[in-house]
């Protein structure tokens, strides 16, 4: 079965992104497919490459980047939500005249259409938010 995942809250502040991560891992282990995870609202902040959590805590961005690498999960960050919140990839940074970019490996920026498409093409949509 194909699961689509929508994450609506940022890392560390809400447990939503942790719950989604454990759900996705369990789904993959059970032989299901998770073709895409869509990050919306403050969820876009999960993609930051600049996070430095304390040594004794999980690194949420790295957990997701590893899932993308190991299982081909497509991690999509909503461009409109990301621009408001200061999350830019290299292209966007150039286009907006910003000197830095902060989207970590394994994440890509795209439009809200990718969320709708995920709803159409998967069997179940799971929402983790607040």
């Amino acid at each position, binding site marked *: 079965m194909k699961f689509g995942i*929508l994450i*609506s809250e940022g890392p560390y502040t809400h447990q939503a992104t942790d719950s989604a991560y454990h759900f996705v891992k369990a789904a993959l282990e059970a032989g299901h497919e998770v073709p895409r995870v869509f990050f*919306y*609202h403050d969820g876009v902040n999960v993609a930051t490459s600049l996070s430095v959590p304390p040594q004794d805590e999980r690194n949420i961005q790295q957990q997701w980047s590893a899932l993308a690498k190991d299982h081909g999960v497509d991690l999509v960050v909503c461009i*409109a*939500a990301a621009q408001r919140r200061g999350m830019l990839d290299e292209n966007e940074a150039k286009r907006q005249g910003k000197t830095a970019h902060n989207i970590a490996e394994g994440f890509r920026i795209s*439009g*809200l*259409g990718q*969320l*709708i*498409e995920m*709803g*159409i*093409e998967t*069997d179940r*949509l799971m*929402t983790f*938010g607040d």
Partner: protein
Amino acid sequence: MEDDVKKFLYVNRKAPYGTIYALESLEVVLIGAAFDQDVSLAFLDDGVFQLTKSQDTADIGVKNFSPTFRALGDYEVTKLYVEKESLEERGLTADDLQEIVWEDEDDDYEEKPSIRIVSRAEMADVMADQDVILSF
């Protein structure tokens, strides 16, 4: 399943302006309208506050997005279910909500109301009839 039309329901349970969820939910609805799915919106709990008349955000410096609801008809989003019990608990009636209409091109472009006031039990039926439920 992939080539079929799916029933999408956008569930709005939060008040506008205190948080961004109402605005960003509407942004999904507008983009989603291009995908030719069977779209409905549900407004219950504090979500009914999104549709009230007379919103004026000038003094909080935040964009007033309530007029956008009136444009939904142009995007062929014509089913806005609003829960009666949620209105009542909040001291509201249908008259406190904006008038939102759509033009029915199959009926000589007659303007028809988009807002459908439903009971809690009917709202539960609407929810149970969907393929995809997006919660905001």
